[in-house]
């Protein structure tokens, strides 16, 4: 089973992420934990939910959390894709899931996810990271420890430094 970083440790991962084309060609797998693209979810919400196995939605840049706001209580996981790590929209999406919608499920970064972005990602509300396959996940884990000091509040501690002193 592939490994991911979750809640600060490396764990085996049970989730399978499929693209819209894969689903179109192969149909929905009858069972197993499945991450589907937002348009697939929107088109086949109930069929997907009726399967054996859990379902999660993956947001691409440009697909905002508001689109799944009404579904959040039945989604145990929301994935946010970074097709390129330089596209920072996903940071605002993760933060919004946590602070605007009080989402408490897993928020997972997928795609171009690399060590040097993990510290920030963790602060905006990601608690799981699927490190890019060609990179050393053990090494990536170090990225969560880059800093011990922060000025701003964040999702894990909303108090900025001037409320922590």
């Amino acid at each position, binding site marked *: 089973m592939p490994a991911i970083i979750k809640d600060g440790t490396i764990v085996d991962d049970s989730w399978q992420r499929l693209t819209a084309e894969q689903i179109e060609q192969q149909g929905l797998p009858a069972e197993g934990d499945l991450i589907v693209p937002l348009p697939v979810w929107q088109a086949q919400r109930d069929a997907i939910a009726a399967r054996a196995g859990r379902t999660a939605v993956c947001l691409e*840049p440009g697909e*905002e959390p508001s689109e799944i706001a009404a579904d959040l209580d039945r989604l145990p996981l929301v994935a946010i894709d970074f097709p390129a*790590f*330089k*596209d*920072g*929209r996903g*940071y*605002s999406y993760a*933060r919004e899931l946590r*602070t*605007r919608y009080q989402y408490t499920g897993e928020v997972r970064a997928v795609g171009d996810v*690399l060590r*040097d*972005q993990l*510290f*920030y*990602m963790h*602060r*905006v509300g990601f608690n799981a990271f699927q490190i890019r396959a060609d990179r050393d996940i053990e090494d990536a884990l170090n990225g969560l420890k*880059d*800093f*011990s*000091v*922060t*000025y*701003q*509040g*964040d999702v894990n501690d*909303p*108090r*900025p*430094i*001037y*409320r922590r002193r």
Partner: protein
Amino acid sequence: MYVYQDYDRQLLNERVAQFRDQTRRYLDGQLSDDEFLPLRLQNGLYIQRYAPMLRVSVPYGMLNSTQLRTLGHIARTWDKGYAHVSTRQNIQYNWPELENVPDILAELAKVEMHAIQTSGNCIRNVTTDEFAGINAAEVEDPRPWCEIIRQWATFNPEFAYLPRKFKIAVNAVPNEDPALIGVHDIGVQIVHRDGETGFTVLAGGGLGRTPMTGEVIGEFVPWQHLLSYLEAILRVYNKYGNRDNKYKARIKILVKALGAEKFRELTEAEFAELKDGPITLTADEVDRMRGHFSEPAYDGSATDQPAALTEALASSKAFNRWYHTNVHAHRQPGYAAVTLTLKKTGRAPGDITDTEFDAVADLADQYSFGELRTTHQQNIVLGDVRQDQLFALWEALEVLGFATPNLKLLTDIIACPGGDFCSLANAKSIPVAEAIQRHFEDMDYLHDLGPIDLNISGCMNACGHHHIGHIGILGVDKKGREYYQITLGGRGDKTSRIGEKLGPSFEADEVVPVIARLVDLYVEQRQPDELFIDTYERLGIDPFKERAYASHH
């Protein structure tokens, strides 16, 4: 000045360690060029024509003498003995080796300096009036607010990968724009209403390829909500700014595309969510920050126009001239602010050597409580000089070559590094600046002309602020040859305004004669006490156009 606390110091040390490791991984091949790029940029490291360029942050332009000596030490040890004051009040090194940058950062960290977010698509150094805290016209000292913004912006996790770079400037002077807030991504104007501090917040200004001035988004944001409001704007920008085309990625394009009304609506919606939450500023925090910028130990018995000054003004014409251009009024009786012009002919505007850093640091210790400021005109200010010591300071500056009495005059040119250093350049800018300085060498004539801002950029990225020069010069490429386009009527003084194009561009050797003709027209047409820019605004561009192209008929 802001004094670092233990946690500020710790943060910097952790940053140095992080970058050292990133550099090691890059040199080992574990990080690709593409992956390392934004990491090094967020540490101020560009790759330019011959070598990397390292941009060191000078938060809102404030420096102390210890920091200045370190800057000199770095120039001596890791560069070619000089550095450069930039148009955003930062310090740049042109020749460091990548391998040495972690050591340079460690050296900077020892004196509470860094290169954090001086480049890249993130929130950049916050800038303000170079006379902040001593300008009698300001409603209050903007620096505590700048420091509050700096801390909020530093490693802000949500805004490290914005569509494009993001620059914030703060101004506290009514009816003037010394911080150029009109041409920043966000401009913050400090205002007082019913005895309370608040902010008028502009968004969507910028120079570069599509220059424009910002729109008022928040009419009056009460002081507690400054960061909530900024965060709201950044959220809107981070989500909706263009990411497909880097020339359309600045916030100015978004504000323009949505319209100020719609942009305000989106901002207000985000703001409503943040308002009164934990990000709300506390009175304690603001007091604490204000405490960091308390007055130096002024001599309360010092008076304006002391006898020593009056006598020196009467006895030395050269001192008198310098006094009238380079010395500024101060809010404290008996004191003055002095600008050191880094604009000697034959020297790239803003350049300063290692030994000069040391010498200026000594002067700051001797005459100005050990503090200095950099300016967006690429000069240095000693902010708190006793008026009876001005003559002695001037004599020392004369020896150093920093007393050229040309501040705000035609030869106090702002110029980017241009084709001599920058790989994006269409044309050189430093030789053009020098040619203009050589032509207008006669100080009597320059003083008679009065203030004229002349700004030069080597390409439309506008690092030299050409759009807001009364006279702007822009390097353009025509079939592989260097040409220069001239704009007139830009302003970065009382207000920020984008200049108008004069017409077809000129070859390099035509630039000086054209400037001379424009200036001649002004001299012929001006009314008593009328400045170049005012004559231009009265007459409009046509007569200038006609004169500029006169020899082409």
